């Protein structure tokens, strides 16, 4: 019985270690909309960021507005959770999710 508990605890620790080993992405390493949103929050709006914002708004209206009215914008880390939840719940595509997150966090 005890060995089973040890095994369970071991599995939990391994899971935690696996998650810990997944390194956080650098915010400036790629040009995808999710990472650009961080820099545009404090920097001057570039035309590229403006295009991403416009595309994000378009995808928000196409995906999210099908079910509910537009909510006000939540803080970025809350929005990241909500968008992940909606990605699963409403089967939003990965690309749509990134654009919507960029739009909703600007």
């Amino acid at each position, binding site marked *: *019985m*005890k060995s089973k*508990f*040890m095994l*369970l*605890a071991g599995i*939990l*620790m391994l*899971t*935690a*270690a696996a*998650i*810990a080993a*997944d*390194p*956080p*992405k650098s*915010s400036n390493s790629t040009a995808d909309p*999710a*990472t650009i*949103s*961080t820099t545009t*929050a404090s920097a001057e709006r570039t035309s590229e960021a403006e295009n991403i914002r416009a595309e994000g708004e378009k*995808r928000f209206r*196409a*995906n999210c*507005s*099908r*079910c*509910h*009215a537009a*909510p*006000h*914008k*939540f*803080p*970025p*880390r*809350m929005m*990241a*959770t*909500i968008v*992940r*939840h909606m*990605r*699963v*719940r*409403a*089967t*939003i*595509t*990965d*690309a*749509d999710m990134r654009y919507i*997150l960029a739009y909703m*966090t600007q």
Partner: protein
Amino acid sequence: MKYSWFESEVCSKRHTVFFALISLLFLASSLVAQTSNDERPIPILTGNAGYFTNVDRGQTELAPEITPVLLVPMGDHWLVEARAAFEGEFERENGNGPYKGVVGKDIDYLQIDYIVNPYVTVTAGRFLTPFGIYNERLYPIWIRELHEVPLIFPLGTGSSDGAMLRGGFTINPKANLNYAAYFSTNSSVNKFESDRLAGGRVGFFFPGPRIEVGGSFQKELQEDRTNAFGFHFAWQPMRVPLNLRSEYARSHDGSGYWVEGAYRFNQVSFWRPAMRRTEFVARMQQFFLGEETDSSELSEYGLPHGNVRQPDFGLNFYVRDGLKASASYGRWLGTRNWNVWTMGIAYRFALPLGPTGAR
């Protein structure tokens, strides 16, 4: 000294708690280590609360409800989701005296999601059965346009205990595909009841015209081993603030459809501040009783006991973000006819359970 059976059980449980706490601390520290970026998701408590007064067949019912949703993201790929529902139904006995009733307590879903890649998400636990679009996407009271759920809502829906694969991806710039395939086991555990089922749903979304079409299938793997299927359609025209949705479902208990249109008065030129917050809703629906339907089963699932038509009309006023006042009128047209009135408010809340990051 010999340990009794009871003492050894207690020791085992202590070990379990100890190792679970160590594991959780390790897991928490690993997650904190990842949260250096301002965009890392944090756990949040969201959901909705509402208070509605319903008048059905001349009987007034008070229906307060609160539905908390807990979202706990872990790392880049995991999400734990849980939704509980506390729904009160209070009525006067024989039309007078104090209101009495019960508060129903349910666990709608308690699931863990692993986002494998842009095409596949694996879900395990208790989840909302993906049949049609109403159950998963339109059910929360702050989202639904009319407070009364459609007559066919119980067909094929509810919650399931098992595993599911789901996802959505772009086929080409003009079309997205979304899907869900699941298996559910039979369970009679309190609050985790489910049937043994297998099924799936496929939908196509066309972002240009903003049209979604899809179909659902479900096979019961117990008792009568019956099949159920359904279709859904949704359209948001580009030029008009109109939201059209429809579903059809058929199972051995019955069949039926609903068609709903919601028009937001955004384009009206008078009383603009009030009109842009106002929405008019109309819905037509029908239910047809199955040929070999057991009446106890109909009661269990909340289905009508005969063929019914019901037109509904409603008004929604969006006071501010997440707060909505609603009123609706419907006419039940069955073997007997009566009015169905609803009036109330719904509020959606969202609370962070961690640092939210800079805006």
